[in-house]
């Protein structure tokens, strides 16, 4: 029992540290990607290639003035960014980062917990995440913040429906809500190649819908209406300064990392990569292949983070009615259609 606890504590600490570090360097990556796309070089003065830039930015946040508006609700004002950060970090608990490692004759699963309703847990936590933005925007006592918060909440609610519906089709094919099981199923063979039976092959439309909704849930461009600079000053975090602002911005990058992880786990095989079982049969040690799997998983996540940034620096923002039209009139019917098609396929094959 004690050993089990130690295993879990180590895994939790690692997951926590890695998601923070990845989010930290996503901020740099964002600036680099935006720079490169705009024919600039991006920050490259703090350390080689600017690798110390995130530390400098973070340090700067600590030394900025903590400002709370005069008529703001102080408790809620502090609660907002805390909830955002907390929920952003909580989701990573159900993500399977790898199969398992054999340490001293025991199997250590590389997942904090594989609860059998993992997907529901993710949705629940993500839904709580919007409270962080809502509470922050409300407590600021500022009309721009409130408008941003309103936009955030209505956008989240609209896109969560389409997201949930796209996941239902996936659950129908996999027959499980546990992310560990869903990733495990993708280890099976496709055309004789192990670890290549990724869900994207069976659910391309579902993935498209899920991806668009994930963009909206992360408040990324073209769905960044909650903080649209050109209209709402800075949206829900207009009144925030110092590390509280830092937490909001940071939570956004952690959310990007987590949604990248969830998309790679659900649709792109998670830690599975082609020919992984053949490698074990060829005599490679299980631990080595498992670690390779973790590496592959992170590559997939980084690809998604890059994709998010790539889209951000390509597309302009939606107008609000266009956003609602896309969510309710296009994505939800498409997701329902996807469920229907998936049902037919399950019935026939």
């Amino acid at each position: 029992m004690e050993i089990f606890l130690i295993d879990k504590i180590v895994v939790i600490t690692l997951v926590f540290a890695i998601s923070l570090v990845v989010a930290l360097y996503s901020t740099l990556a964002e600036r680099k990607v935006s720079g490169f796309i705009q024919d600039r070089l991006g920050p490259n003065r703090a350390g080689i290639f600017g690798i110390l830039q995130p530390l400098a930015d973070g340090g700067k946040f600590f030394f900025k003035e903590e400002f709370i508006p005069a008529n703001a609700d102080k408790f809620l004002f502090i609660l907002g960014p805390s909830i955002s950060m907390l929920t952003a970090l909580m989701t990573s608990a159900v993500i399977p980062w790898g199969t398992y490692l054999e340490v001293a004759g025991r199997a250590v699963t590389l997942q904090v917990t594989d609860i059998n309703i993992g997907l529901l847990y993710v949705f629940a936590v993500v839904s709580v995440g919007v409270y962080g933005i809502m509470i922050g925007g409300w407590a600021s006592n500022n009309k721009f913040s409130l408008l941003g918060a309103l936009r955030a909440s209505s956008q989240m609610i609209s896109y969560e429906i389409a997201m949930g519906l796209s996941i239902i089709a996936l659950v129908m094919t996999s027959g499980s809500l546990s992310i560990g099981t869903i990733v495990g199923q993708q280890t099976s063979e496709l055309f004789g190649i192990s670890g290549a039976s990724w869900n994207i092959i069976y659910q391309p439309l579902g993935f498209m819908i899920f991806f668009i909704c994930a963009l909206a849930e992360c408040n990324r461009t073209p769905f960044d209406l909650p903080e649209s600079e050109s209209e709402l000053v800075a949206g829900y975090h207009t009144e925030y300064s110092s590390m509280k602002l830092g937490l909001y911005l940071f939570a956004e990058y952690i959310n990007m990392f987590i949604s990248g992880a969830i998309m790679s786990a659900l649709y792109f095989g998670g830690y599975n990569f082609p020919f992984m079982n053949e490698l074990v049969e060829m005599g490679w040690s299980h631990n080595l292949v498992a670690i390779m799997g973790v590496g592959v998983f992170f590559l997939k996540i980084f690809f998604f983070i890059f994709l998010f940034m790539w889209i951000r620096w390509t597309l302009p923002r939606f107008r609000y009615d266009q956003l609602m039209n896309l969510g309710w009139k296009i994505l939800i019917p498409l997701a329902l259609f996807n469920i229907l098609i998936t049902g037919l396929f399950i019935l026939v094959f």
Partner: protein
Amino acid sequence: MKLTNRSKVVVNKEMTLAEKLYLPAILSGMGITIKHFFKKKPTIQYPEQKRDFSFIYRGKHVLKRDEEGRENCTACGLCAVSCPAEAISIVAGERKPGEEKLYREEKYAKSYEINMLRCIFCGLCEEACPKDAIYLTEELAPANYDRSNFIYGKDKLVQPLGTSAHPKTYKPYKK
């Protein structure tokens, strides 16, 4: 009037299915951005990389010495007269016996001051000089905290002893 060949007639027609989907347009847009991502960046990283000045660039002045290290300037005052900003002031002095190694002519500039805040770097002094004594170099007149430091005397203007005509320190009169 047609200004460019890129103008398009705006038609309020029904969008085709591909246009309604937006996805093809989004993908082509992402193609454009990724092309720029891998493009060579035109940035010049300033303190490490410097762009060469144009050949006719006019920067900080230099008072030339000849091949034997004697000052060319004879304090004729033509530069001061030609200066549209009235930035140059000269006090002439007579060369004493024994100073032949220092000054080329019998008359020389005892003090030669250019007010860099007044100077507009037009190069008329360079053009007016009959003795090839003053040139505008490729160097910049650096910033300073005090206005009085912008009055450059002979200590800052005269070409250091032992240096030769170098493209970085002064440029030829006409090419």
